[in-house]
């Protein structure tokens, strides 16, 4: 069994159709909507605001705090328990560490910037969608950032290197690997690199090269969303 044609008939390096919009939640200081295929993501930024409990305060710079959450009926139809769990805690943590390197919160000592990400519908690639949405929302909130973070998954399905796996590909019967990647636009530094499954050294290098182009496509969508937010009609 060799994976020649992708299940949804995309090209190997083709991403699912993307959509993004900034400023969708009026009560938040910054917000964004990001959709890639059937994965839908909302991000809301609040702050900089006072940080409690006090022992978390850092007198040198502000803190970035991400909250990832999948909605109860976001998956295949089975209800999942809303709110935090072990998985969401880890994803919140990796989101934080992939966004932190670009944030410049030195002007906001002792404060916190909260990022809330909710996924009303999921079809794999949620942490990547969450990071991409959070980056738009943070920029929309006017928080100083050195660079934009764009994120997408790459991987290997039964011997074929592909970009942006959907759930059916992740669950494909065979050797599959799923590699979520977050990359900075200017420096091409990686701020997120995780892997699930198996991949050969050659394929990994190929996949990461593919990620460079794929994240650039996500960046274009993010950039367009932010520029449209304040366009002069």
């Amino acid at each position, binding site marked *: 069994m060799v994976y020649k044609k992708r299940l949804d008939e995309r090209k190997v390096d083709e991403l699912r159709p993307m959509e993004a919009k900034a400023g969708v939640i009026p009560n938040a*200081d*910054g917000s964004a909507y990001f959709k890639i295929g059937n994965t839908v993501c909302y991000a809301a930024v609040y*702050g*900089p*605001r*006072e*940080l409690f409990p006090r022992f978390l305060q850092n*007198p040198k710079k*502000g803190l970035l705090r991400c909250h990832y959450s999948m909605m109860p009926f976001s998956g295949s139809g089975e209800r999942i328990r809303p709110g935090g769990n072990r998985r969401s805690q880890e994803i919140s943590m990796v989101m934080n560490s992939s966004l932190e390197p*670009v944030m*410049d919160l030195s*002007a*906001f*000592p*002792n*404060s*916190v910037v909260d990022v809330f990400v909710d996924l009303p519908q999921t079809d794999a690639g949620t942490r990547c969608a969450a990071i991409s949405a959070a980056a738009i929302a943070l*920029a*929309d*909130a*006017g*928080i*100083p*950032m*050195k*660079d*934009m973070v764009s994120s997408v998954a790459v991987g290997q399905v039964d011997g074929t290197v592909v970009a942006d796996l959907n759930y059916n590909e992740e669950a494909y019967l065979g050797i599959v690997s799923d590699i979520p990647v977050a990359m*900075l*636009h*200017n420096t091409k530094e990686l701020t997120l690199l995780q892997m699930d499954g198996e991949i050969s050294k050659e394929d990994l290098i190929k996949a990461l090269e593919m990620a460079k182009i794929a994240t650039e496509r996500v960046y274009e969508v*993010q*950039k367009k969303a*932010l*520029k449209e*937010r*304040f*366009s*002069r*009609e």
Partner: protein
Amino acid sequence: MSNVLVQERDIVIPGEILAEGMDYLPGENTYRKESAIYSKVLGLVSIPGRVIKITPLAGPYIPRVGDKIIGKVSDITLNGWRVDTGTAYSAFLNVKDATTRFIKKDEDLSEIIAIGDYVVVILVNVTSQNLIDLTMKEPGLHKISGGRIIHINSQKVPRVIGKQGSMISLIKEKTGCDITIGQNGHVWIKGTTNGEYLAERAIKLIQEKSHQDGLTERMQKFLEDKRV
């Protein structure tokens, strides 16, 4: 050899490259890396002379000495009031900066300014850690009574005021309201109920359309149409 890659009043996003080469200087909200200048925020480009800077389109209020703000009293201490500025940082208003009257040692400070009152104050000192001292002793500073407080984005305050106060005096004139704008984005409106409502809608409209051209004319038309 240097070249600027953006134009005046272009919208740029964080991390976008603005200029290459060493002929230009990085101004506010930009940074230099190697020989290129990059943007740090979402905003509009302005190039006065050899400096490239970005005017943010959104973002939190940064406290600066001399700013007039509207704050809400959140606590009373032994020697003054703690004032919520609508940012991550609260400010302190000392008794001696609040009133010229003699205050006796054991006097109840809540009789002068109570918790929950709004005050118009000026920032006299801001430290590196954003600890803020206030004064209420200059002309035009007072405790607020009556009217309503609305909140707008602090980056839009200059647009609501307009060039030499043109926009705000237009709204004042058409609605008959007394309006005070704090640099932190809190606006106090006092007048008739209808006037207050109209002024509130006008200010919200400015906030929404602030980056578009011909705002004053648009506002004039809005206020003419809505006036009964």
